[in-house]
């Protein structure tokens, strides 16, 4: 009996000793957390399987190869209702990517402008940017989307009364109709020159840096590169007699035929997402620039650098290090928020594979999983790219 009484305290101590040891405690917590997460996902998957079994459904992706049987109004690739659900999904993916990429570009441009305006010493510009940012970012983006869509659909005229831009482009509430270019063989010359221009730019930047390092001579790199990429191909285009033919939209019946069309749904989604996200980017840019100590600029001026070169060589590179990580989040937001397309009927991933295909085939589990994986892939790709960029511009530490 005595032996037992003596043997017990060390046992209790073992648990408390393990718990009181920082290293083992963290291992225990990690094991428990891992087990809990695993159990959670296991329960979810199990629940899904049981429920699917209960209503007699199996998991299968075979439906992707059946004809989709529905039409899609705006598609970057050829598509008709006889194509498969898989192709409809590709149409949706491309539409999502289109609005995400266009949105990222526009929101970055507007956002950087807003950030600079917010720092402007001009009272009017400064206050306007301030009011814009505070209004836009405090109203849900869904309302912006509905507002822009409503404005286009209600305020622009019908095709027969279209706003006519010199007989080539037409603004209507059914979309913006524009001439569609089609290439003649000579146009390849222009494309090749354009490619050469880009290659030249890469080489020239390196060369200019070498010359500057060696002699201190400074080339106007930006203008020379712009000339190589845009100027030379443009000149060639004119010299070759403009080897493009334009398919101009024409009013016929209810709508315009021919040409290219940008639908109001795309414009609404693109503008609303970009202008909304731009407000956030504006604040990020302002924070980034403000965070660079004024002494840096002063030092740069003292070295005799001009104001613009101070900005581009001293302030912006340092600001970028602060800007890029939160900017990544905004790019991810814009991509994910594009799923609000559903509210106005823009045919993105959610509307095609996660909407109509899902509904017409009844494959909820498969379709939602596909949608989820697609968004996850996009987001991870954007993250990976931005992390690479962030690493590239990071302060070199020794």
């Amino acid at each position, binding site marked *: 009996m005595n032996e037992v009484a003596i043997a017990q305290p060390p046992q209790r101590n073992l648990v408390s000793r393990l718990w009181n040891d920082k290293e083992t405690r963290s291992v225990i917590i990690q094991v428990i957390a891992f087990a809990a997460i695993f159990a959670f996902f296991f329960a979810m998957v199990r*629940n899904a399987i*049981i*429920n699917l*079994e*209960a*209503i*007699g*459904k199996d998991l299968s992706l075979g439906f992707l190869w059946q004809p989709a*049987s*529905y*039409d*899609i*109004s705006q598609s970057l690739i050829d598509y*008709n*209702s*006889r194509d498969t659900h898989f192709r409809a999904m590709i149409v949706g993916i491309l539409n999502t990517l289109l609005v995400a990429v266009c949105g990222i570009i526009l929101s970055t441009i507007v956002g950087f402008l807003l950030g600079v305006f917010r720092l402007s010493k001009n009272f009017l510009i400064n206050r306007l940017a301030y009011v814009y940012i505070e209004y836009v970012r405090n109203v849900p983006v869904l309302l912006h989307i509905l507002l822009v869509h*409503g404005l286009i*659909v*209600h305020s622009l005229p*019908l095709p027969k009364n279209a706003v006519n831009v010199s007989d080539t482009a037409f603004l209507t*509430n*059914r979309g913006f109709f524009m001439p569609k270019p089609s290439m003649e063989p000579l146009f390849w010359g222009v494309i090749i020159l354009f490619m050469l221009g880009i290659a030249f730019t890469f080489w020239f930047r390196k060369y200019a840096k070498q010359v500057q390092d060696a002699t201190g001579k400074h080339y106007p790199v930006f203008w020379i590169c712009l000339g190589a990429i845009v100027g030379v191909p443009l000149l060639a285009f004119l010299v070759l007699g403009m080897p493009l033919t334009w398919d101009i939209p024409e009013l*016929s*019946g*209810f*709508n315009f*035929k021919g040409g290219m069309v940008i639908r*109001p749904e795309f414009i609404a989604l693109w503008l609303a997402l970009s202008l909304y996200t731009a407000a956030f980017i504006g604040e990020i840019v302002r924070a980034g620039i403000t965070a660079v100590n004024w002494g840096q600029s002063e030092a740069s001026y003292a070295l005799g650098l001009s104001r613009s070169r101070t900005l581009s060589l001293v302030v912006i590179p340092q600001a970028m290090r602060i800007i890029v990580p939160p900017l990544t989040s905004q790019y991810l937001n814009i991509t994910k928020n594009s799923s609000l397309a*559903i*509210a106005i*009927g823009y*045919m993105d991933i959610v*509307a095609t594979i996660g*909407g*109509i295909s*899902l*509904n*017409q*085939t*009844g494959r*909820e589990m498969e379709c939602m999983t596909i949608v989820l994986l697609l968004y996850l892939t996009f987001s991870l790709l954007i993250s990976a790219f931005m992390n690479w960029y962030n690493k590239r511009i990071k302060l070199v530490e020794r």
Partner: protein
Amino acid sequence: MTAMTAQAATLDDVKARGELNCVVTTGVAGFAAPDENGRWEGFDVDFCRAVAAAVLGDAEKVKFIPTTGKTRFTVLNSGEGDILFRNTTETLSRDADLKLTFLPVNYYDGQGFLIRKELGVNSAKELDGASICIQTGTTTELNLADFFRVNNISYEPVAIETNEEGIANYSANRCDVYTTDASGLASTRAALEDPSAHIILPEIISKEPLAGAVRQGDEQWADIGKWVVNALIAAEEAGVTQANVAELAAAAGDNPDINRLLGTEGNMGEMLGLDAQWAVRAISAVGNYGESFNRHIGPDTPIGLERGLNAQWKDGGILYAAPIR
């Protein structure tokens, strides 16, 4: 967890809950829409109430779950809804692949086109190049694609989620044409600012037998839904109305059809797992099929639909309830 309810007796669940969860539309005037007091009214709503009256003894014990064309089957299959009355076309794939069991058709419909009179269009074949508003996730979406492809004419589909969005887009002239079931178009047209400025084109491009539905796998519950619908149709055929049902049910009369329907003869209710008065309660709650039709969507309402195919078989329609015996 919902798997349990999918298999087990829905009847027991509904009774235990004391409320019927009925899946309806987000709002199609005349079929299912909240009135100015927020009370759901309409032809489909009446079927929900009739089932509640038969099962729970109180036509008011219904919770209406508004759904879009896309969410309706998920809501039903997940067990959130017990029964669906939502302008839903019975099709093979929905029956077999979506695992639904359809009740008898309560409205024979077909897809039509609503368009402004001023456009001067007289036939759907003249719609080349038109922008057409269409509810996504519906059979009409598929019919439309087929119709235009077969006739080799082009169109721009404008995808919308709900009937209200459809009306909004059509009113704003975002689309030239709104297409859905002809009954839905009549309802939509009645809701427009000037209904006389719009016409429904003569072409009906599809068969749309609209029927209620329940989850597959609960035969008893499916039977209850099926026979409540049949009872309302049979009641009209036999001349049983909301006004005279109490009197006719008081004692067995000399018409055995009515006696069996109203439970004064045989044990029909018991066979369904209900009591003898099931049909009496359903009919006194909402009236027979014709009464409900005339009250919500008939010629004297703003919707103004004729009975047409939906007349009793004796009157030249195809409404034909299986005998209750």
